[in-house]
């Protein structure tokens, strides 16, 4: 366990020694702050006057926060591949994986360490992001349950992106290939959701398979354990595949 933690810490530190993590965090924060302000402005000037006096009117959390987190999820489709691409592909290109392979640690520890390192970065990202809706608590009352569900949903969504990216990074020889294929896979899963929802050819199976459908129910404030199980299965599945792939490298050469 301490070895996993050691690898995770080192990975996180290495991400912050290059400008990559800093600039991605800044960029994501900037874009989403803009989205947040737009949503807030629209709510205050247009939506709120219309809702006056209505019963069960959707509140701030429904309109502003949900759309912010939805945007965050979509933006991450492009950001996560950049973060995951280097994890194994870069090590393979620079032939540095030998260091970890020769050390007395198992492949499972290597994979979990790298994954945990990325999860730490994503935690920072989600935490910074949720500061924006939290700032609303100064002036209004928030639907805390809904906010918590949305935050958890976003975190699980990103964790599932990361697991898929990790696996594709283990497959690729060059980081850019890993990034492109991860992006492709993530977009494909979104398309799967859209086609599952489309008129005439809707399919429950497609909707279930896509990670976005499960994310949306979190955004509505529904914590369904089957969604949680979906994400856990997704993550564990890809981590197992990564471990298998690296183990296979040793056999195939």
């Amino acid at each position, binding site marked *: 366990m301490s070895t996993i933690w050691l690898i995770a810490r080192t990975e996180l530190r*290495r991400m912050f020694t290059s400008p990559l993590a800093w600039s991605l965090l800044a960029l994501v924060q900037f874009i989403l702050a803009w989205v947040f302000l737009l949503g807030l402005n629209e709510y205050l000037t247009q939506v709120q006057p219309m809702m006056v006096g209505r019963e069960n009117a959707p509140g701030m959390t429904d309109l502003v926060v949900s759309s912010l987190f939805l945007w965050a999820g979509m933006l991450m489709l492009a950001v996560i591949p950049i973060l995951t691409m280097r994890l194994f592909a870069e090590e393979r290109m620079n032939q540095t994986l030998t260091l970890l392979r*020769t050390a*007395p640690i198992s492949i499972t520890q290597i994979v979990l360490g790298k994954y945990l390192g990325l999860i730490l970065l994503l935690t920072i990202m989600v935490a910074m992001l949720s500061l924006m809706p939290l700032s609303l608590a100064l002036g209004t009352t928030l639907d805390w349950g809904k906010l918590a569900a949305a935050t958890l949903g976003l975190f699980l969504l990103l964790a599932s992106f990361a697991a898929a990216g990790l696996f594709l990074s283990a497959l690729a020889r060059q980081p850019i290939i890993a990034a492109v294929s991860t992006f492709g896979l993530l977009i494909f899963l979104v398309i799967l959701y859209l086609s599952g929802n489309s008129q005439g050819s809707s399919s429950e199976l497609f909707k279930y398979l896509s990670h976005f459908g499960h994310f949306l129910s979190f955004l509505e404030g529904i914590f369904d354990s089957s969604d949680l199980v979906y994400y856990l299965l997704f993550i564990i599945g890809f981590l197992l595949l990564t471990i298998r792939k690296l183990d296979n490298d*040793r056999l195939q050469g």
Partner: protein
Amino acid sequence: MNQEILVAAEGLCRYYSDHCAVDNLELSVHKGEVLGLLGPNGAGKSTTMQMLTGNLAPSSGRIRINSIDLLDEPLQAKRSLGYLPEQPPVYRDMTVTEYLVYCAKLQGLRGDACQKALERALARCGLQEVRRRLIGHLSKGFRQRVGIAQAILHNPAVIILDEPTVGLDPVQIREIRQLIRDLGQEHGVILSTHILPEVQTICDRVQILNRGKTVFNDSLEGGDSLENIFFELVYQADPAAEASL
């Protein structure tokens, strides 16, 4: 030389699909011995070393490191291994100290032991003055030395070095050779290189590979010069191999 055997490989084979890179190889290293692994390009030296360090699984055969089976108990066996691959496995975005501390911790060293190992490795490889520099900013020779420091950091019983003196200047080469000879006193060292005089000055025993097979395995005391032996074995083997096809 009936000291304890640190590395023992029996019947080692490795196929890359149909191509046989290493064919039924026997290899052993005693404590206090430096074994030189020689051979032309593509003879299977690097493949052999990768198998001995658990980076590559052999198609068949057994490897025992410090009398622990590498394939059955890889984690235990790897504790007594230090390995410098052809390309030093260094992270360019870390400083020398950061990197070596990370390596020491990966080997399970903590606290005081980690600090001592770090200082000793820095001193032995002459890295004190660059300890705070980023590895990416170092010259190839220094990077190579960081790679060697990484391999000897945890004082392993077996040290495997793949062309350790490539890219070093003549003074550094002499220092590293001296270091390897020193290491050979208490450890078992396997060394691969293309520089024949280097083998003659450092190694106690030489094993020459050609096309994945051992063609020579003996100590170098007296007798023919290594160069003659090498060319005779490697080039005479060729027509015979062709005739048998």
